[in-house]
């Protein structure tokens, strides 16, 4: 199974994301933001970083890149897409996920190991987990505060589209401790914390993050 990892100008975690794909047993395929061909990959990861310097808003300019037009069209046909940190911001800016990420409530960049409660274990990217499981992966952001109108957040929760929620403290002031959400069909997932940094005991606080990548590979084999 081939998982594409898109590199934008300013992406930082594309190499780690590709490594996580390989450790999970997949083939990582490097994709470039200015191309518009997905090279036949079976799923796509949008990595963390500061695409285009986050000059306008985090993820705003990357969301309009040629490759993203293809990703948006294919995601609407069911292509699994995972957005991590800046990738989550890109997915919200591209309209594939609801809400928005903005400046942390305390205005500090926050970098620490973070507990997450898995509330959805049936999406394309979280089927390797158990519902109600707590995992620990790094979080690192300055503009990670998930926001939306109360009506939008009520609708999101009513539809059960919160995938992971912060536990043991909210690192950025996100509404309702929301760390990650999914599309209505469970194929597109975005989260601020970094599962790709928790795939090896040598470098991560756990190997809890590997499940995101094994989930999509398992689903693709079964399909």
């Amino acid at each position, binding site marked *: 199974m081939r998982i594409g990892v898109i590199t934008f100008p300013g992406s930082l975690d594309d190499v780690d994301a590709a490594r996580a794909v390989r450790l999970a047993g997949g083939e990582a395929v490097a994709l470039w933001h200015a191309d518009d061909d997905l090279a036949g990959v079976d799923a796509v990861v949008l990595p963390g970083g500061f695409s285009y310097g986050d000059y*306008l*808003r985090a993820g*705003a300019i990357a969301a*309009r890149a040629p490759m993203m037009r293809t990703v948006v069209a294919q995601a609407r046909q069911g292509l699994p897409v995972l957005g991590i940190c800046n990738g989550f911001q890109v997915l*919200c*800016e591209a309209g594939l996920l*609801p*809400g*928005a990420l*903005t*400046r*942390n*409530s*305390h*205005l500090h960049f926050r970098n620490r190991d973070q507990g997450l409660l898995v509330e959805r274990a049936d999406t394309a990217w979280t089927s390797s987990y158990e519902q109600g499981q707590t995992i620990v992966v790094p979080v690192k952001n300055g503009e990670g505060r998930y*926001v*939306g*109108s*109360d009506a*939008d957040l009520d609708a999101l929760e009513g539809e059960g589209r919160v995938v992971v929620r912060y536990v043991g403290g909210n690192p950025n*002031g996100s509404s309702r401790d929301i760390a990650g959400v999914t599309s209505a069909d469970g194929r597109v997932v975005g989260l601020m914390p970094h599962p790709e940094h928790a795939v090896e005991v040598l470098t991560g606080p756990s190997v809890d993050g590997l499940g995101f990548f094994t989930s999509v590979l398992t689903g693709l084999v079964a399909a």
Partner: protein
Amino acid sequence: MPRVVVDVVLKPEISDPQGQAVLGALGRLGHGGVSSVRQGKHFVLEVEGTPDPAELRQIAETLLANPVIEDVELHLVPEAQD
């Protein structure tokens, strides 16, 4: 050349920690009479020919602002003095 000014500010229901930090600084400087600060963005576009209001609104709402969290206002400045 016609000039278009686009002001973008977070919606009232979205908290603005940057504005609150500025408000705190104003208080420390003795400007206790300021009760609220909202920080936003100010874009100045120079447009060739006659600006198309529909196109400008599209520019403002699809790129310059994120309508999920931000309000946007457009102001046309017909005669730029320069």
